[in-house]
């Protein structure tokens, strides 16, 4: 008699636990509630921009560089056109700069290397929680956009990427205040060597005040826009379309 009763009790306990979990989850994932919770993102962005006024992220020494910098997200784009560019050593690769600009550009890697550059040894912080220190060399994003001449109505830059991740093309958006930050660069070298495929060859973003998912790899095109709600999921980035905050500074 005791065994079935015990089984019954365990069953009742398990279903109560399941009920508790599903009840909690209905609340935890309720869309209206999530909208309220997301208001904290606006607060974080406003407060941090107000307090910080764009201070530089800390820069480290060569001795701090990790030999084991983790490559995350896409580490080898499956896209055939990208693989063809790898095979050709990115000889035909061109960075397209268009949208709300006075002078649309198409720049080769050599032309980008000739632009005003910056080298910085910084800490990369992944949204998952880990950090790695590496050295990045790249063209200053602000100077590049000045070259193209932003139209007055431009508010954000969309970074269109070559990689497909989970069935969708990667992309990111940056506000102009971040585009013009001195440490925001389009990096073509890491630790003194050309960018590897795993880390985003031939060109990736470094915006050092932000988390890893903002640092778009395999950048193909910079599009100046006044809004981004018509692009992909409309939230301003690949991970943003999957629920992550667009600010990405926390």
């Amino acid at each position, binding site marked *: 008699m005791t065994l079935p009763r015990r089984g019954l009790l365990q069953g009742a306990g*398990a279903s109560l*636990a*399941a009920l*508790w*979990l599903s009840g*909690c*989850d209905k609340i*935890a*994932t309720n869309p209206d509630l*999530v909208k*309220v*919770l*997301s*208001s*904290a*993102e606006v*607060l*974080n962005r406003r407060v*941090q921009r107000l*307090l*910080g*006024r764009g*201070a*530089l*992220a*800390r820069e*480290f020494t060569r001795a*701090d560089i*990790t030999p*084991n910098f*983790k490559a995350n997200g896409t580490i080898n784009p499956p896209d055939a056109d990208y693989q063809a560019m790898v095979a050709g050593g990115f000889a035909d690769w061109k960075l397209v700069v268009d949208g709300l600009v006075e002078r649309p550009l198409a720049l080769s890697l050599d032309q980008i290397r000739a632009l005003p550059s910056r080298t910085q040894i910084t*800490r990369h*912080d*992944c*949204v*998952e*929680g*880990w*950090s*790695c*220190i590496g050295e990045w060399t790249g063209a200053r994003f602000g100077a590049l956009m000045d070259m193209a001449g932003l139209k007055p109505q431009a508010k954000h830059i969309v970074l269109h990427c070559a990689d497909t991740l989970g069935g969708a093309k990667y992309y990111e958006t940056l506000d102009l205040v971040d585009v013009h930050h001195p440490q925001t660069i389009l990096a073509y070298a890491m630790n003194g060597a050309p960018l590897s495929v795993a880390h985003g060859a031939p060109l990736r973003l470094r915006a*050092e*005040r*932000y*988390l890893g998912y903002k640092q778009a790899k395999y950048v193909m095109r910079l599009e100046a826009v006044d809004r981004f709600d018509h692009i992909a999921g409309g939230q301003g980035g690949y*991970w943003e379309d*999957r*629920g*992550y*905050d667009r600010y990405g*500074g*926390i």
Partner: protein
Amino acid sequence: MTSAPTPPKPQKVLVRRHSPIVRITHWINAVSLCLLLLSGLQIFNAHPHLYWGQQSDFGHGWLSIGAYDVGDHPRGVALVGDTAFHTTGFLGASKVGGVWMARAFPAWLTLPAEQYLALGRRWHFFFAWVFAINLTLYLASAVIGGHLRRDLAPTWAQLKPRHVLHEIWDHMRLRFPKGEDARRYNVLQKGAYLGVVLLLLPVMILSGMTMSPSLDADFPWLVELFQGRQSARSIHFITASLIVVFFLVHMVMVVLSGTWNNVRSMITGRYAIEVAPPTAVPPEPIGDAP
């Protein structure tokens, strides 16, 4: 009949224990800490490894929770330094809806239950604001209103080693202050509460802020204070664990020293103490005291 007087029966009186601001901030704090813990464990699960210093030395964290496959289901293991603890069913591998999953903390301890870092962050950062604003209000009122000085700061007499040892000995025998002594916090209570509101809770906020790359750029002293972002993440986790330990002891003490009386005092503000009836003790003749 003998002339020995029977001791007067103690009387229950309700005294004002907690001010409205203490009661309100206490419950807001309790709810936010609970939600912050559950959403925090969701965030921890995204990379269940902790390190010291600026960056992550993958594979060499001081704490690491993982799973390995044996037979029909994953087995959980928690590594603390070089010591492995087999934690199948709780840490590393646990059942979600009857199905075995490799996940650091189990579904019933994370918000939301499923692995969903983005949503865990939304909950965490919203209630981080609620928690921080609430703590600021509490501390400001405690300083300005005198709660800190009057109720929480130990008196010199309470700090004497003999008194402290005596309190510890009494607590170990589950003897709690009674009567007039119950009007104020004992020295162990004061120490525990001060440690939480002045040390653990502020450290939670500061170590949490240190994990934000933008705030690190704005306030480099944050990273200096914790000796690195990964150290800050470790300290955030350890401090949260200490708050959980405090919570468990707090619950045990609430139950042992009178559940309803304690809960009522934190809701209505009224706390019952037993005092000798004032008329039972004949007043001492007021003599010519020096």
